[in-house]
């Protein structure tokens, strides 16, 4: 097990190096001098500009800058943004918000996927199943920003149940609407997976044994069918969690959530190179870690899977 984790972590190193290089290169290639933005519409003072360029090492060639960056990264230092804030601080401020949003969204997704998937699977081919299929296909097809606007328009503007934007107050009540929208965005796949998994388990021999022992449906469905259908669903929920902590850019933007995705998008638009590179690096790192955790979770949930090598 430890050997397996170690090997996976070692494999992640070249991937992380490659991604930081690609992102650093792309950000380096962005046109325009990012420092000029700091001066607004005033003409920059040449001495100050040169001093700033030196401070951010922008006068150095690309590879020197990249290696410098990597050196700082290894020490856990993400650098300083052009607005003078340490990127570590920006991360520490925005990350908990995104995490909170993702946790609420995944919880809603779990409840929806398990209930709807279980009923669909047990009543395969019925009206409920057909409706669930149509709704999930629709949800897969609707782009996330349309989903955000529809949610914002109906639940916040028309019905007034929620406040339309979040702002600086990131309480549970404020984050609920964006979390519901995010969960709807990912729930369709989880519903269909639960359904397929339930159908497969319901046909398994041990379920037939359970029924022939005389156990009631009330006991067989939750204990024998549902519990054994959970393995693929759990890993899907884990994957969605990884997706939500890195990919909630659009939702965070529309609902004005001060999270990672929103901050990163703003940084790209303003040419804030240190922030962009560091945020993407952290996201890729998280993505890799979440993936390793999912694979480990698989082994914990299903004793038939063992990582021998």
């Amino acid at each position: 097990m430890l050997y397996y984790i170690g090997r996976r972590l070692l494999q992640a190193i070249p991937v992380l190096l490659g991604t930081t290089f690609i992102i650093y290169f792309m950000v380096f290639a962005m046109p325009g001098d990012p420092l000029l933005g700091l001066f607004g519409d005033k003409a920059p003072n040449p001495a100050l500009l040169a001093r700033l360029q030196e401070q951010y090492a922008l006068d150095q060639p690309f590879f020197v800058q990249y290696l410098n960056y990597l050196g700082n990264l290894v020490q856990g230092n993400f650098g300083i943004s052009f607005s003078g804030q340490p990127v570590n601080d920006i991360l520490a401020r925005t990350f908990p918000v995104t995490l909170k949003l993702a946790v609420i969204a995944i919880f809603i997704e779990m409840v929806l996927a398990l209930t709807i998937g279980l009923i669909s699977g047990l009543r395969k081919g019925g009206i409920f199943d057909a409706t669930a299929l149509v709704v999930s296909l629709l949800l897969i097809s609707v782009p996330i920003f349309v989903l955000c606007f529809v949610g914002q328009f109906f639940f916040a503007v028309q019905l007034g149940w929620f406040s339309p934007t979040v702002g600086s107050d990131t309480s549970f009540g404020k984050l609920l609407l964006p979390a519901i929208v995010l969960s709807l965005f990912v729930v369709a796949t989880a519903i269909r997976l639960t359904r397929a998994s339930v159908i497969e388990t319901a046909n398994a021999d041990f379920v037939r044994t359970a029924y022939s022992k005389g156990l009631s449906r009330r006991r067989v469905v939750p204990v024998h069918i549902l519990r054994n259908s959970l393995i693929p669903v759990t890993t899907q929920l884990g994957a969605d969690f990884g997706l939500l902590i890195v990919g909630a850019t659009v939702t965070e933007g529309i609902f004005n959530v001060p999270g990672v995705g929103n901050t990163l998008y703003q940084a790209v638009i303003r040419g804030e190179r240190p922030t962009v590179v560091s945020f993407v690096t952290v996201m890729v790192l998280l993505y890799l870690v979440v993936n390793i955790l999912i694979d480990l979770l698989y082994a914990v949930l299903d004793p038939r899977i063992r990582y021998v090598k």
Partner: protein
Amino acid sequence: MSSDMTGAGATRSASHFVASVEDAPIDSVDAVKLDEKPSNLWIDAWRDLRTRPMFWISLGLILLILTVALLPTLFTQTDPRACDLANSLAGPGPGAPLGYTKQGCDIYSRIIDGTSTSLSVGLIVILLTTVTGVLFGALAGFFGGFVDTVFMRLGDIFFSIPYILAAVVIMSVFSENRNIVVIALAIGVFAWPTTARVLRSEVLRVKNADYIMAAEATGLSKMGILLKHVLPNSIAPVIVVTTLSLGAAITAEATLSFLGVGLPPQDYMSWGNEISAAQRDLRTDPQTLIYPSIALTLTVLSFILLGEALRDALDPKARALR
């Protein structure tokens, strides 16, 4: 396993364990029917597909969308750029069945005109991802070893960067000259590993089949085996992924335009641009946002429905779970 044995009260009965000779004469089982047309995966898939209403509905929708994209003048004669501020946010009127935008442009004709942009971006993206994905996936799966490790790690690198964010960065690099090819590249460069992974696992499965060994025994070269036997037998899941990702690519284009880093709105008519421009009027005039959104969703939905139908037809295992 059949599904009729699940319920608590299901009963089983079997009078024979083997079919009686009257039901299945021995020669009918073993006989090779020379007069019967030879069947293969594609013929079977087609027989399955043509019985599915979902396939015909999605195909009909896609044909309609293609016609709109190729011949927009069949559907509207109104110039989508002829806008009159006097009509700003006006409701439906003669010549404008869906009303007007804030700039006083006809919503309907703008949606019709945006179709070709969305479809061209989607098609270029899947061309790019399919060619790259098939090349990398086939070589990695077939040759294995070092080639496999290098190609798949390379795929991991591109796969682990969230592709909308990567596309936003690429579009910022090309902020001066954004066009259909650039936006397709920005989306496609980070989307190909999905295709590569799907094909690789299928190639790994196929290359151990007996007919591959038979082909090796006849002295066919490695490349010959890959092109003549392995690829045709492992391409089916790629077709499914390609259809599904065409929908995803169209969504990605709209998302980038919506984020303000897509195609320049003054040069290109695009659904994403329309939605982006309409978002400020959502509270008072939702129709300016709803109609382009419906067009976008309907297009994506038809490709997803087609992909689902193809998956069911090409993958008998998925069929069993329906």
